[in-house]
């Protein structure tokens, strides 16, 4: 047993012992602590800085809940638009840092919905603000500011994009540890933007719980496979400069990143009717462990070089097409930060579930689009349908409290 394992085990024992101690007065069971004996959620006090060289919500450890909100600007001119963006940043900053609910005269409507109580705890909240290509059309005189590489998301083979669930002038990625924090944030930001930007579409996401076996193990998506195993490590700054951040030399968009959102409906009932062997062959990994086929450890190199004919891992398997792990494809890698979604049931009685695919990359054409074209013929396409999403630019972070996301548009 390694030292780390021992410490983890001891901490867990301490938690159980602590609960047992309470249980002497409050009837704990042998199964573990009771829900009403647990301490208040510690995440409520987590604060993620809003200001910084890059926006929060990109390299930030992934919170449990998210909502993506696409907005269309309805203000008449550029000045109003930029003012709306200034106000958006100011309110987002205040909410993410945790603020007190303001008070007004008794006969006036309160300034905050107050659904989180007297204070708005930060709860690890991040609001990542991004712009779609449509913001740079002829309405606001911003055409010259459109960063090269920011286009409307094209239709890829097998896509069935619903215009009402895709695109948008502005996209907000709102993430926090609790659902009510996310909902409150959207409610307050909508109030800030009322009459200036209108919601075009929204999509709620949730993260699967960390269920191990190790703290590093990737969580499972709704096809039950571990998703994110091969994500580039966010603490490797040089790698992030190569794969995620747009170089500072690239003008006002420098320090930002391109955000690709794809609403991928997963036909989960159909998937559940597929044999385990075929499921694993389509992905290229074992469902339980997440190890590449023929391997034993989730993080093991699949060694495609030793399997040139695809006898172990099929040539058209997902992991092989998504990341061939060759020197030529190393700079195509993307940083994924996706969420599951569940939004009810369709006309045929099937669950409307899937993946909010979220990728951050320096250059959409070189990275995401190249990968996506490779994936066009993977067998998994029968089990998924992309119905919405878009391409966006998440500009650099705000320098200080006087700065705002998108201030480069005004320069």
């Amino acid at each position: 047993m390694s030292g780390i394992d021992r410490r983890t085990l001891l901490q867990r024992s301490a938690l159980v012992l602590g609960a047992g101690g309470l249980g002497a007065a409050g009837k704990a069971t042998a199964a573990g602590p009771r829900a009403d004996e647990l301490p208040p959620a510690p995440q409520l006090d987590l604060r993620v800085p809003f200001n910084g060289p890059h926006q929060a919500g990109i390299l930030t450890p992934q919170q449990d809940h998210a909502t993506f909100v696409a907005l269309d600007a309805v203000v008449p001119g550029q000045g109003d638009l930029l003012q709306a963006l200034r106000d958006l940043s100011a309110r987002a900053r205040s909410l993410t840092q945790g603020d007190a609910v303001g008070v007004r005269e008794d006969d006036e409507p309160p300034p905050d919905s107050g659904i989180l109580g007297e204070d708005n705890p930060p709860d690890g909240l991040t609001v990542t603000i991004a712009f779609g290509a449509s913001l740079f059309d002829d309405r606001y005189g911003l055409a010259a500011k459109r960063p090269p590489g920011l286009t409307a998301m094209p239709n890829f083979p097998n896509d069935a994009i619903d215009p009402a669930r895709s695109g948008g002038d502005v996209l907000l990625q709102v993430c926090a540890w609790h659902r009510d924090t996310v909902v409150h944030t959207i409610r307050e930001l909508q109030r800030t933007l009322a009459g200036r930007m209108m919601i075009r579409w929204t999509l709620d996401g949730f993260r699967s719980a960390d269920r191990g076996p190790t703290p590093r193990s990737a969580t499972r998506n709704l096809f039950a496979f571990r998703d994110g195993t091969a994500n580039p490590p966010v603490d490797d700054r040089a790698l992030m400069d190569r794969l995620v951040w747009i170089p500072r030399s690239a003008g006002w968009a420098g320090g930002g990143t391109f955000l690709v959102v794809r609403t991928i409906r997963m036909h989960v009932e159909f998937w559940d009717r597929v044999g385990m062997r075929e499921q694993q062959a389509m992905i290229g990994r074992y469902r339980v462990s997440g190890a590449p086929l023929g391997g034993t450890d989730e993080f093991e190199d699949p060694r495609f070089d030793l399997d040139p004919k695809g006898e172990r891992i099929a040539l058209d398997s997902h992991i092989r097409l998504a990341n061939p792990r060759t020197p030529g494809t190393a700079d195509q890698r993307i940083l994924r930060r996706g969420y599951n979604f569940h939004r009810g049931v369709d006309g045929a009685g099937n669950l409307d579930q899937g993946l909010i695919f979220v990728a951050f990359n320096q250059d959409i054409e070189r990275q995401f689009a190249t990968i996506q074209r490779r994936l066009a013929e993977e067998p998994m396409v029968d089990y998924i349908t992309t119905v919405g999403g878009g391409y966006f630019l998440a500009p650099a972070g705000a320098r200080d409290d006087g700065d705002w996301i998108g201030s480069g548009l005004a320069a």
Partner: protein
Amino acid sequence: MSRVSSIPLHLRRAVLAGIALVALALAAFALSPFGGPRGDKSFGVLKLSGPVDDRNPLGVQVHKVVGSDVPADLYGSQVGESQRSGSDLTGRLVTELAPIAPEAYEAPVARYIAYAERWTARTRRHARTLHRELAAGDRRGAQAAWRATWSSYLHLGAVYGLFGDLDQAIDGMPGGLPRGAADPDFTGLHRIEKGLWTGERPQALLPTQRKLERSLAALAAELPDTEIDPLDYRTRAHEILEDAQRKLLTSTDVPWSGEGVLGTAALLAATHQVIGTLEPLLQGRNNVLIQVQSDLRALDGAVAAIRRRHHGHLPTLNGLGRAERARLNGTMTTALAALAFVPPSIETAPSPVIPRIK
């Protein structure tokens, strides 16, 4: 050469071994009236006479399964329970069914191709009617002819790339095209559907119609030489209706006409055809065939009830009542659950072993 000697040597050995096993089992009974001692792994059941009544007309009473600690009256249900979780009573994985020779698929595929040729000819006849109605500018007549043409084509069950680019040209949706439904490359039956249900002039659809008829002619020419490998064919048995559920009952593939019920009925007929050709292969393999036939009949019943209630016609998806919709969705889901077991029960090779990374 006598009949007996024509039996291959290994079979004769197997028969002899079987006789020896039966003798051993009988010896075990003789030695112990209540079966072998604990841990005895020989297999058999202990028979004692029991009360003769309506429930047990032969007076058979089974107390214990030899080689198992599970009481006989629970044995069957426990075996069934554990097999559902993929293992036998000793916890070992349940053995797969013995593979079928790939040649066994030749006759079913040939029967399917002959069927597909008949429905292609029928599709072409309806397409000619559609051509005339478009030329005459009769929208309602053209819509009726479109339904007949499209439904006939779906009877082929040509999902999942069976006819590759030709299927895309005949029945493709515009999703992957750069400009979607507005793309100039959007063609085939759904392009005509869009035109007929969104007010385009019927005559303006004639160039698309001519292209469609050329594609159908090419299909008729290609069909006799079409090869379908066993894996593809047995997968088809469940994927045809998977398509109906995912693309037709949700209206994804019939956004303009809403004819999802008509299309589902056609794909159901195609599934019956594929299952019918596979019947000789499915006989006696884990009751899959009986389950599938029973669940497909329930789906047939749901479609037939809809047809009766709508005076002999299949309504659009929006025309379905809530209860009709629920029954259709429900019987479809049940049928799909049964069909999912068709491909694994008639495989042509044992599961390949995945080599280790080295």
